[in-house]
């Protein structure tokens, strides 16, 4: 080895060539219990994690540690080991040297542990044999080779046209057909027109087609009707609702705080509605990204861009007494860092929270650099009025202001002094924890309960106290004063009672209630004081390591965003967003189109979709993935165009019917020689049933609702209450159902809605008897069957058979077959007998609504049974 040079490279985690893993397992199996040190199992991980960053690609000291010959060859100063003689081996001398000597390897970071040194010693004693077939790669080398870290180059589209059993309608098909042809596998034929109509309607709007949609479709010109439908659906306001869902899963949106007390966030929906709106208006993905990550930092923030920052507010808040404020604030930043990692980069960044990533080129330091970018923001709710609110508020506010100021004026100075003392006491306690438990507690309570049950930024109160009085906004002053009056008596009980502050407090509360305040919305705001961030040793924020500056990951694309190489300026969330959406960022576009693909085919081209790192799966169709990514990126990040491209392809339009020939060779449908039948997600199951029954309320947006569910469900969490909504709010789309993190809506859980504590990139599609029980017996679904029956009984039909036909079209968007009609007719007649015998008395029930025709109770029972059968069909909850 050459002279000692100190180099400043971060040591990046363990990184084998992928091929090593297979080999590792065999070797390990072969060497069990021999008592010997095993190269692959014991030695290679040490070399890879501690040596290869300098002794692989860069070959410091002329020494490379990648394979047998390089190892044998040694470095500039000759051999590094003497077989059988560890003490005389240079490698052992260097790793055991003291740091002061300047000779120690590795020069940075902690020395090798004694165990690690012993392993290397034993290996040299054993003869230091390097297995011939084993090649090590540094993380950087492995990363450089990794497909997902290469800049996206637009691949050439195979030159193919429709021919002999293959349909090529757009470039997607060219890629897919090219691979099918080479394997001599046939494409599936186009799906039945009505199956296709139902499929694309569900995929683009989350709702099934109505009987009128079916009629219109069949009446349109066959050559163009599909395209017409696609364009109609893309323009539908329900498109945004459907596409908000997977994004809400990603950011784990919910209407409550999470953790023990799981308090309400009654304005969380403002972000959800922004998202629907953004999808409906086809906001380009780069702008969506910038708004959500940095909507407060753009040049001229708008209400729209501020609402978008609600994205970052979907992290949990722990308001349990005794919860450490900083610990759970840190959890939020970690969560946000992971969101950026998973949602845009498809990387498992969370691993690097405690240590360098074991497989991907992300060091712990880099994790905290990214963390530091997101750490410079605070949670604040802002008044962002709904339409009509502002003018009313402005009128009322003038009077309110005057009255409030008048009421306080006589004691204003005294109050100011008192509050200042209170604040000083708390700040003193924060600076000297443990000295005064009651003031520690006073501060803790401020951080725990501020804005609770209102979904306000939990730590905003603490932030205001830390802000010098002259820099506080009027609103901040008011709200902190209100809090102080209600909870600050500890500072001087006598003064509180002398000045009668309890009365003042309640009077001000009453006064506040006389004003219709603009609806608030969760947003983020750049922190007033920059936070310094250190590496959290082993992921523990209480054990700070080296300081880091806000920074971005080093993927293959070179410079992050413009202007941030400057040592003085800090990398901001805006820079982060620009870096994510940079055209040379190799991951963002791939990860995004892959997730879109997953929604249309049930499975991404890369599956699972949350790991594009070295341990992730390779894409089934790499060129197609890259082409789609390039298309999306280069054409303005228009999501609707991407979706249109996919649904217009012949690949998408194929039949999903089972093919015995494919089952064995391609059980997961990676080759895409067919479509896949997909069970609807929880929202869609609900929406489809309600839609078929005519109960569905199609109102878009607004506060979340509480549809009926058994009372016991809410009780699973800590004293939660479910106050069932009235009227049409009982029948809103599933998207609007209140999400209580600790005790989620039962129907959703049964149909695999994910827990909302962490990111979900892909929902399960299980098939369980609990689903059967729900569809059969849940009063909500049985009510739907009754509503459907009422409706069809009100209609004018020639015969029972015709009536049944109408029901099938309503539910399945296709005519029933004769066999199906026979089955249902038999059931109908059977039910008539059963119901007649069980309900001998003539009873009548009144229909609600405008049509007040009286329907025979027995008739209703019978037909509700028929409707229930139809609403329980596998096909109903499947998009074929």
């Amino acid at each position: 080895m050459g002279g000692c040079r100190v180099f400043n490279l971060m040591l990046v985690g363990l990184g084998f060539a992928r091929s090593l893993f297979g080999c590792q397992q065999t070797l390990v199996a072969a060497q069990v219990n021999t008592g010997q040190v095993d190269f692959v199992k014991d030695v290679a991980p040490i070399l890879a994690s501690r040596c290869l960053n300098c002794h692989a690609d860069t070959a410091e000291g002329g020494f490379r540690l990648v394979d047998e010959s390089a190892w044998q060859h040694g470095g500039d100063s000759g051999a590094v080991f003497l077989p059988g003689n560890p003490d005389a081996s240079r490698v052992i001398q260097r790793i055991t040297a003291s740091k002061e000597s300047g000779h120690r390897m590795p020069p940075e970071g902690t020395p090798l542990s004694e165990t690690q040194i012993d392993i290397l010693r034993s290996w040299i004693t054993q003869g230091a044999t390097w297995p011939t077939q084993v090649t090590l790669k540094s993380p950087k080398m492995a990363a450089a080779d990794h497909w997902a870290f290469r800049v996206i180059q637009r691949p050439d589209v195979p030159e193919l046209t429709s021919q002999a059993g293959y349909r090529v309608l757009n470039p997607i098909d060219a890629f897919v057909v090219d691979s099918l042809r080479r394997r001599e596998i046939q494409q599936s034929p186009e799906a039945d027109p009505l199956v296709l109509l139902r499929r694309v309607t569900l995929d683009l709007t989350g709702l099934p087609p109505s009987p009128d949609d079916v009629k219109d479709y069949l009446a349109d010109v066959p050559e163009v009707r599909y395209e017409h439908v696609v364009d109609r659906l893309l323009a539908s306001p329900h498109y945004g609702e459907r596409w908000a869902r997977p994004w809400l899963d990603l950011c784990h949106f919910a209407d409550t705080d999470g953790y023990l007390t799981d308090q309400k966030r009654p304005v969380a929906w403002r972000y959800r509605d922004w998202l629907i709106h953004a999808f409906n208006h086809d906001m380009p993905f780069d702008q969506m990204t910038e708004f959500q990550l940095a909507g407060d930092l753009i040049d001229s923030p708008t209400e729209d861009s501020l609402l978008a920052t609600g994205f970052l507010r979907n992290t949990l808040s722990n308001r349990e007494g005794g919860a450490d404020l900083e610990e759970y604030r840190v959890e939020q930043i970690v969560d946000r860092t992971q969101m950026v990692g998973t949602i845009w980069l498809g990387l498992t960044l969370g691993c690097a929270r405690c240590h360098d990533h074991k497989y991907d080129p992300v060091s712990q330091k880099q994790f905290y650099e990214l963390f530091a970018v997101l750490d410079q923001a605070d949670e604040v709710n802002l008044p962002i009025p709904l339409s009509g609110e502002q003018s009313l508020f402005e009128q009322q506010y003038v009077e309110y202001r005057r009255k409030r100021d008048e009421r306080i004026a006589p004691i204003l100075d005294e109050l100011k002094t008192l509050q200042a003392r209170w604040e000083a006491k708390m700040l003193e306690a924060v600076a000297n924890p443990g000295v005064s438990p009651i003031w520690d507690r006073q501060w803790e309570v401020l951080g725990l309960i501020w804005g609770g049950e209102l979904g306000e930024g939990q730590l905003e109160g603490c932030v205001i106290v830390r802000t010098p009085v002259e820099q506080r906004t009027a609103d901040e002053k008011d709200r902190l004063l209100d809090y102080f009056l209600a909870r600050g008596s500890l500072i001087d009980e006598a003064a509180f009672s002398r000045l009668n502050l309890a009365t003042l407090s309640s009077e001000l509360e009453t006064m506040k209630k006389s004003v219709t305040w603009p609806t608030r919305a969760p947003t983020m705001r750049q922190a007033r004081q920059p936070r310094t961030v250190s590496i959290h040793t082993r992921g523990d924020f209480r054990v700070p390591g080296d300081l880091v500056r806000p920074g971005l990951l080093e993927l293959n694309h070179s410079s992050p965003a413009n202007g941030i190489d400057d040592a003085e300026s800090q990398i901001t969330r805006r820079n982060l967003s620009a870096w994510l959406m940079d055209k040379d960022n190799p991951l963002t576009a791939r990860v995004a189109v892959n997730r879109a693909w997953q929604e249309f085919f049930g499975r991404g081209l890369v599956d699972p979709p949350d790991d594009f790192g070295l341990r992730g799966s390779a894409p089934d169709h790499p060129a197609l993935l890259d082409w789609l990514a390039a298309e999306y990126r280069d054409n303005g990040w228009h999501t609707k165009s991407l979706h249109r491209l996919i649904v217009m392809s012949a690949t998408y339009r194929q039949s999903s019917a089972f093919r015995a020939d494919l089952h064995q060779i391609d059980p997961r449908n990676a080759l895409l020689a067919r479509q896949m039948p997909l069970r609807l997600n929880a929202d869609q199951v609900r929406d489809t049933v309600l839609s078929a029954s005519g109960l569905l309320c199609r109102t878009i947006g607004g506060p979340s609702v509480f549809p009926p569910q058994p009372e016991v469900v809410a009780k699973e969490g800590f004293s939660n209450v479910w106050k069932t909504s009235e009227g049409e709010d009982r029948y809103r789309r599933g998207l609007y159902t209140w999400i209580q993190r600790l005790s989620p809506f039962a129907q959703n859980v049964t149909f695999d809605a994910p827990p909302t504590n962490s990111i979900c990139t892909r929902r399960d599609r299980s098939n369980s008897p609990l689903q059967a029980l729900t569809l059969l017996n849940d009063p909500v679904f049985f009510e739907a069957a009754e509503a459907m029956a009422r409706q069809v009984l009100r209609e004018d039909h020639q015969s029972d058979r015709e009536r049944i036909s109408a029901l099938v079209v309503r539910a399945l968007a296709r005519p029933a077959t004769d066999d199906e009609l026979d089955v249902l007719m038999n059931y109908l007649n059977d039910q008539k007998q059963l119901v007649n015998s069980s309900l001998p008395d003539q009873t009548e029930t009144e229909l609600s609504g405008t049509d007040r025709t009286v329907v025979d109770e027995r008739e209703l029972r019978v037909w509700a049974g028929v409707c229930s059968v139809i609403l329980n069909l596998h096909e109903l909850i499947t998009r074929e």
Partner: protein
Amino acid sequence: MLNPDRRQLLQSSGYGLGWIALRQMLAEASPAGKESAAQSSGLRVAQQSAESQLTVPSGPHFTPRAKNVIFLFMSGGPSHLDLFDPKPTLNRLHGETVPRTFTESLADPVIRGDARCFGSPRVFRRYGQCGMEFSDYASHLGSCADDICMIRSMYTTSSNHDPGQLLMQCGTVLFGHPCMGSWVTYGLGSESRNLPGFVVLLSNSGEGVDGGTALWSNGFLPSNYRGVTFRNSGDPILHLSSPQGVTEQMQRRRLDAIRSMNELRYHQTQDPELTARIESYELAWRMQSAAPELVDFSDETSSTRALYGLDQEVTRPFGSNCLLARRMVERGVRFVQLYHSTWDDHSDLNQHLKKNTDMTDLPAAGLIRDLKQRGLLDETLVIWAGEFGRTPMHEIRRGTTPGKEGRDHHPFGFTVLMAGGGVRSGAVIGRTDEFGYHSVEQRMHVHDLQATILHCLGLDHLQLTYRHQGRDFRLTDVAGEVMSSVLT
């Protein structure tokens, strides 16, 4: 993970996924050998659709000591000092400030300023031949001392309820990880054909469990492994009973019509998921009859009922769930998780503790005794545990009222009880220091407890893994040691 040859077998079998589902549901009728190891979870129908991972239980890694688990989770953190771990020194120093010599030795000084020792107001005495000590509030459990393994050296790493409970159930304070019951059914499947393999029973006085449903979440495992909540009011399983006015005969006819319609569609699409759906409906039907039978205690003798305290109002809620748990393991349910909340006695400890022990002590002891008399204790592992213990000092954080003192959360030392399949009986493992503050001998972290529980079930906690985000995850995170001192 599915072992390769089995995966191959399934994929090359020439049958659809529906066939796999069917095989799994009928697993108890399958031939010996590998297939029979793949006992089905009663709920595991069509192991995920084709687009997702196929998972089949691997079966035990070695000969199990226990087949089933009944986990009595004492949510909120019961006080070890007033139930299981007597501390004469603490009692002697009652009311005095904690000796400096002690506080100075603490690595993590959570004892603040004026903390004062809080001796236990309870009376301890020795029980059974083994002479294990219990307080008078736990006298019924005490009467089972010779069947109990008492671990006094537990410790944990979280002192808040929600994270602490997550750690105990899911092995991590991070979200999105499967709980123990999910891991176990993933590893072993269930032996019940008509009931879910992993059941959760809540008995609380209207107050839910702090950690909420995340505590019985399947996390990243397929959702079939999620715990199914049985309720103690209304339907035992959500939507188990037919809608009002629908007779059993009508329900059956409805199912027949659904089945015929589904079969017609199957002829057109051959979608294997459809056959699985048909089977789901049949299983739902069987559950509709099996579950009421399960929760119908009319075949239990009055002495059995008394054993569980069903004859007394105060013990009935928890007692019913304990009896239900026994009936479940008799019917092949693999993992029964009971929750009782809440033991979070920040104030008025003596009164609150009495309330909780009045509700639970007798039924928990009754369960152990009943399992034993039926010969089920050998194959059932019973665990009694909370997420942490309570401080040896008065609650400081929220202040104290004389005569109404409470204890705060305490992660550094607490007690867990185990009984039955594979664990020593009449044994006390480890100890805490003279204040009951730190676990000091045979220290047992939550991960060690988890490794040990899995071990009793024949599962190696290092091998029971699932690939997620490029990594093999397990219940015990990157830690956990089987505590052989606990095992027979």
